[in-house]
């Protein structure tokens, strides 16, 4: 009987294993994860779960019965140490070796940690990737405490929103000239920042953390590159992740900003595949690596199909969301390479959308409290249509009636 081993029991790993069974794979199927729990959703960790609005039992992606019924041998709390690509064996943390006919790497990404020399080893300096991380910092979130958030990406901003909502005093430092510099336009950053400022968050942008030291009172003094010092009770780092490539590297697989796979999820080894946050794949003539739930699921499912010889090339349809306070930010497409942002006021107060163009081509939409703009943009982008920017900017033109540039060309 053939054996497929899926290494990394997160969003991609669980989707890949489930899809293998849904497509009729009848052999032995093992899903191995380093974390002590069954696959769960990470997005709520910096949102509802952190805010105390969601209990642990709701985080799990699938119930145990699902793995049992589908004969998926879920092995938790087990770090895979190495893969031998010639023998096609997997070495577990306890030294045991298991053989597989095919291997899928869904190892995700590791958070970048603050170096120990900068105070990263202090006990109340947290990262934000796993359930264990979220549970470790949960007791710190009590009203009146002071927190320094390092990094103004989505994870850092969501943590800031939860902290501010719970009555903590929040300072956020971002080394880049502004928050969301890597992922969103100035317009979106300005809009989001204003919401945080209204909730009392203090921003230090274009300002790096130089180091943390413990004070006499047990607080942490954070020295910043603008010469100031902020005193806080604890620190949350949201300074990005690195694709988890150690196993792939050890096995001699080709790496390129993650584990390099082709459009079928194949690595440079014919029987080893990869998907999710750990994998970079072909995209518009280049290569890209996405860190999102939709990509983890879709790429994992496409890869499962190609492992069974039923594959079609994976074409990513990127989308993402972020919840901060009562703001729902929804993003369709990828804005890389845009040369223009068109602002569209929403129908209600507090809603707006930003439409990214390269020339006449619509690349992406950031919608704040405007799901109709988000869904309209998503549909158009996925279909390869671009509405006329002038019409997008005019709220009197209904979303459903946006004239398309391609209609005029035809």
């Amino acid at each position, binding site marked *: 009987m053939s054996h497929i081993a899926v290494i990394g029991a997160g969003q991609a790993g669980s989707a890949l294993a489930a899809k293998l069974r849904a497509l009729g794979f009848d052999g032995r199927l093992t899903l191995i994860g380093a974390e002590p729990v069954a696959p769960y*959703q990470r997005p*709520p960790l910096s949102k509802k779960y952190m805010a105390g609005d969601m209990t642990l039992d709701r985080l799990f992606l699938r119930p145990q*019965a699902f793995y049992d019924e589908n004969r998926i041998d879920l092995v938790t709390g087990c770090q895979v140490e190495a893969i031998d690509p010639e023998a096609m064996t997997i070495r577990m943390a306890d030294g045991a070796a298991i053989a597989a006919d095919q291997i899928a790497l869904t190892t995700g990404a590791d958070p970048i940690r603050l170096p120990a020399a900068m105070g990263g080893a202090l006990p109340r300096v947290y990262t934000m990737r796993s359930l264990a991380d979220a549970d470790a910092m949960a007791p710190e979130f009590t009203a009146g405490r002071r927190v320094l958030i390092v990094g103004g990406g989505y994870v850092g901003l969501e943590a800031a929103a939860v902290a501010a909502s719970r009555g903590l005093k929040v300072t956020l430092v971002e080394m880049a000239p502004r928050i969301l510099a890597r992922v969103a336009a100035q317009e979106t950053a300005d809009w989001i920042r204003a919401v945080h400022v209204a909730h009392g968050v203090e921003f230090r942008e274009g300002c790096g953390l130089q180091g943390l030291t413990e004070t006499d009172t047990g607080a942490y003094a954070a020295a910043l590159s603008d010469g100031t010092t902020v005193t806080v009770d604890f620190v949350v780092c949201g300074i990005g992740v690195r694709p988890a490539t150690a196993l792939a590297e050890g096995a001699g697989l080709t790496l390129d900003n993650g584990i390099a796979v082709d459009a079928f999820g194949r690595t440079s080894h014919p029987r080893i595949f990869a998907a999710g946050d750990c994998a970079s794949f072909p995209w518009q003539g280049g290569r890209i690596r996405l860190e999102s*739930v*939709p990509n983890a699921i879709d790429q994992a499912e496409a890869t499962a199909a190609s492992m069974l010889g039923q594959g079609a090339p994976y074409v990513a349809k990127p989308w993402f969301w972020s919840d901060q306070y009562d703001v*729902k930010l929804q993003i369709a497409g990828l804005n890389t390479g845009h040369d223009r942002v068109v602002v569209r006021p929403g129908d209600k107060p507090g809603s707006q959308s930003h439409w990214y163009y390269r020339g006449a081509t619509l690349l992406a939409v950031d919608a704040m409290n405007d799901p*109709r703009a988000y869904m309209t943009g998503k549909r158009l982008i996925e279909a390869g249509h671009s509405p006329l920017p002038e019409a997008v900017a005019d709220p009197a033109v209904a979303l459903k009636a946006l004239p398309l540039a391609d209609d005029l060309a035809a």
Partner: protein
Amino acid sequence: MITVTFTAPDGAEIAASARPGLTLMEAARDACVPGILAECGGACSCSTCHVYIDPAWTAKLPEAEEMEVDLLDFAVEVDPETSRLSCQITLTPELDGLRVRVPARQG
């Protein structure tokens, strides 16, 4: 516990039992009901948790908020009378016995 009966597209019935406070989507997920993808995990951002509520029950549910209404518009094969996003319905004791149909496809 609250019992909800899901009817799969092929007509098979699955009885799910869930505690109050969970959403209808979570009840389906925990009972391994196929066809409710719920890609965003309940963040009202994907519309792949679309279901049809049994007409006898639609009036007993709390009305959909604007976010849900807006997103629902973009789900597949929406029925204006009975379609809802299952992640936006929180189960309460009044909903014990609820009957729900799962659509043939989500996208």
